[in-house]
């Protein structure tokens, strides 16, 4: 509740208004920061923010050349005080082969990265100046906030996971399987799951929003599985040139978000769907 009131009150804390403020609302920028806080930032990053100063965010349209019928738009967002660059996409295009339209209600994060090379000229960007202390207070207040999929989405997840657990990519399984679904991000279309029995992280991702029919048309395409017993290294330098690994730091963060913040489900492959009361409490 506190977090929500902080978020809703955020608009009042803005010091300067960009020309096209309606394109990226201030509440939206707070959600982006919350996503970065949970999935990207570490202890070395936020320490750089002067809590008595201004948190400036620059953004501009970066829509590339698209397919003829593609109405999507892209934006680049720069946050100099934490040296982060975020790329956003608001998808809007048809997939005639499947008879669906890929859409996003708002811009979704398609990439977030810390950058060393910073553009010297930011004149092509719109600028939003936020109160840094208010943002830090907001991030602190929502650090444990968990937004879980609704019942319909959970049901679809159960079906998808049951199918995945017994699919050709999975090891043989017997009996009930424990999985943890990480909290949803309102600005990302990635859904992370930790399959405890197999020690695997599973990422469902798509260009379209998770709660749309279109997402489930792609559910089998957008799955990436990381076997934590074989796919983790401290540094990519250990296997230079290989694209098979993830770093331990990254895996640890994903595990934290799934196990500590996640929603626990018990799935028994081959059995009809049933949701025992209380089972989904974290």
């Amino acid at each position, binding site marked *: 509740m506190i977090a929500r009131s902080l978020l809703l009150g955020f608009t009042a804390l803005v010091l300067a208004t960009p020309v096209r403020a309606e394109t990226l609302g201030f509440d939206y920028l707070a959600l982006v920061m919350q996503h970065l806080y949970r999935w990207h930032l570490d202890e070395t990053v936020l320490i750089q923010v002067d809590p008595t100063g201004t948190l400036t965010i620059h953004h501009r349209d970066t829509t*590339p*050349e*698209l*397919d003829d019928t*593609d109405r999507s738009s892209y934006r680049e967002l720069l946050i100099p005080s934490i040296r982060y660059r975020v790329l956003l996409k608001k998808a809007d*295009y048809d*997939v*005639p*082969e*499947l*008879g*669906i339209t*890929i859409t996003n209600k708002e811009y979704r994060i*398609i*990439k977030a*990265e*810390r*950058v060393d*090379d910073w553009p010297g000229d930011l004149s092509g960007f719109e600028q939003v100046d936020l109160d840094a202390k208010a943002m830090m207070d907001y991030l602190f207040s929502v650090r444990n906030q968990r937004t879980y999929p609704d019942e319909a989405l959970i049901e679809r997840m159960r079906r998808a996971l049951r199918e995945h657990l017994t*699919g*050709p*990519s999975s090891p043989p399984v017997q009996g009930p399987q424990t999985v943890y679904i990480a909290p949803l991000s309102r600005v990302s*279309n*990635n859904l992370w799951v930790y399959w405890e029995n197999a020690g695997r992280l599973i990422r469902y*991702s*798509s*260009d*379209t929003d998770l709660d749309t029919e*279109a997402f489930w*048309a*792609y559910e*089998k*395409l*957008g*799955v990436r*599985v990381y076997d934590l017993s*074989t*796919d983790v290294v401290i*540094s*990519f*330098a*250990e*296997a*230079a*040139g*290989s*694209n*098979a*690994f993830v*770093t331990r730091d*990254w895996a640890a963060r994903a595990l934290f978000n799934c196990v500590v913040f996640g929603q626990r489900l018990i799935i028994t492959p081959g059995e009809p769907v049933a949701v025992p009361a209380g089972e989904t409490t974290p």
Partner: protein
Amino acid sequence: MPITHPRLFMLLAFTASTALARLPDPTTPAGYVAHLLVNEVPFPGERGYRSEQDTAAAMEQLLHVLDRRLERIPTPYTQQQIAATRANDILDIITVGGEKGQFDGFYRDAQGRPAMVPRVTERIDNLNRIASQGKPGTFARLLTHAGDLATAYLAEQQRPSDRHAAVSKAERQPATGGGYSWMTDEVRYHPGGNFLRIEDTDAGSLGGNRFFTLRKAPR
């Protein structure tokens, strides 16, 4: 009406399967290369998809990486340093290191045959299925492009134009030019060693992948 004539049934089955198969047979070298090209790029609706042109360009640059690791090793590097093997067969370049080798999910099985993990074949089967629905569109064209690229390369040594050939600087350091590696386009993914990230302005980001060239003077 049920099909009772076995030869007619076989003919129909063959027709159906060729309509579905827009990629060469994966047991052939061209088919295996084409499957790798498809596996590494996004199709419409998938994370990282930008446009048909972008995905097609990514496939072309992926092929260049394979070709450079096979035949265009810049001085003073050795093939072993860049490709983690010494080989004169593109299939060895792809499968080196086994299932968790240089190209995740592509390896040689116990009999030494090029193989793919099930998730690769599952995805490509799905892409083929989607491509076969309705009028041929982006999915079909991209699958065909992968097959054409691999076939032309293996049959006639035809290489598409190389967007990375002229790269002379990357990560503010002199570079050899040409792509020698790729990874998912996120900063946390870097191949390490002497690889340098090719910048966006040099078409370093294509099809959800980041391409890497080499430091001109190895460390």
